[in-house]
């Protein structure tokens, strides 16, 4: 049986799993970015905040995903098979990864650009939103791409404890010794990761028009 035949036979299941996988990986990305931006800003603005924040983020990142999927229900009071656990765990990883990236990206903004903005009469807030954050976009986007791709593939680990998403294709293939669902799952997960990657690249391009202007010259 080919992966394509399998897909046609189980279309509604597979599409449902694909959708679940997409939002389980995507929502944590957005929430994680929203949480990491202010934290990263604080870590770059106040020098003493940086070491403890980065160390804590590193520690959170060492927690194995399967372990986090299992501990979270006890902390959150959710059911063990609840997909929310997966989303929260991936949010934790996204924040842990992005806090350092945001802080480093803001620190790497050329001081000339900041001085120029100040000299032009920008307030601190105008400078942050008008100069520093836009200049940090390429680096933050690079971090976001890493987080997106690893989120998409980490979701499938949740099938070990039975949360249905694209990883269910792997457990299905294992139980029935059938290549079709396994290969289909691998293709769909990689394709989903590429879609996320493309969306982030496109967004970063829209947010940094000056990079194209330089290239076009």
């Amino acid at each position: 049986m080919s992966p394509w035949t399998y897909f046609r036979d189980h279309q509604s299941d597979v599409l449902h799993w694909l959708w679940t996988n997409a939002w389980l990986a995507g929502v944590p990305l957005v929430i994680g970015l929203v949480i990491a931006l202010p934290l990263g800003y604080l870590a770059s603005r106040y020098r003493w905040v940086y070491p403890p924040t980065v160390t804590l983020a590193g520690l959170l990142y060492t927690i194995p995903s399967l372990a986090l999927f299992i501990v979270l229900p006890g902390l959150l009071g959710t059911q063990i098979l609840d997909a929310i656990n997966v989303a929260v765990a991936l949010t934790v990883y996204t924040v842990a990864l992005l806090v350092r990236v945001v802080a480093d990206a803001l620190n790497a903004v050329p001081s000339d650009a900041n001085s120029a903005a100040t000299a032009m009469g920008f307030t601190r807030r105008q400078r942050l939103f008008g100069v520093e954050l836009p200049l940090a976009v390429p680096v933050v986007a690079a971090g976001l791409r890493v987080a997106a791709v690893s989120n998409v593939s980490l979701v499938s680990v949740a099938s070990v404890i039975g949360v249905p998403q694209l990883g269910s294709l792997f457990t299905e293939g294992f139980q029935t010794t059938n290549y079709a669902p396994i290969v289909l799952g691998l293709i769909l997960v990689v394709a989903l990761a590429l879609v996320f990657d493309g969306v982030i690249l496109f967004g970063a391009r829209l947010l940094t028009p000056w990079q194209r202007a330089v290239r076009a010259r």
Partner: protein
Amino acid sequence: MNPTLSFSNVLTWLNDPENWRGADGVLAHLREHIFYTLIAVVIAVLIALPLGLLIGHTGRGVVLGAGSANALRAVPTFGLLILLVVWISPKIHAKQEVSGLIQQGGLAYLIPTEIVLIVLAIPPILTNTYAGVQNVDPAVRDAARGMGMTGGQVVRKVELPIALPLIISGIRSATLQVIATATVAAYLPFLGGLGRFLVDGLTTLNDPHDGYPKMVSGAILVAALAVVADLLLIGLQRLIVSPGVSGRYSRRKTAPDATAEKTSVQDITVDLAGA
């Protein structure tokens, strides 16, 4: 299905000596977990370190190396594991048994698992190794050449020692990933490791004293193992990185100008890889 997912019974579970002894105890599964991890990390280092040194030294294949490392990240490890198991396991008929480490029949599942763990561990070590070698100050490399060192000597005596902090940080993130992913192996039959507790706990979830406490204990043990392994590697780094590179030596000699630049090499850790 699971009315009480409370942590209160976790300490009781961890404190019960019965849960630590025997073939299904903490000690046995901890030993298996370390065994799986060591095999994967050692083989990955044996492959990635020479390759990374070669790429870094010659400057060839950087784009290919970085590209394939990034592409590998998108492949779900669990899917790759299942694919290899369905493909390879039926072809392995060896029934060798290593007391306390490999169960009878376990080899057929251990080999695909180790392949996945090795594939997972290679990219961070490889990219950090060639990045570390490429970060070597060209003036230092020229000086070594000028002193009459051969290409091999430059690699062994100059580039490797200077790149060592980055290489070890690559090995650290590889080890963390392998420890985390080795838990997934418990999904397969005949394989142990700390993941056993996470998977087996699911079947007794209705027993408030066994199911969930067992899973959480397993999760805590895996996280603890990851932290301990990371600390050990940091200790190893302190032992084998030359004081001239890490800057710990010259700091004592009060030469702040020289250290400021050198310690920064250590700070550029490329540990973006996922858990």
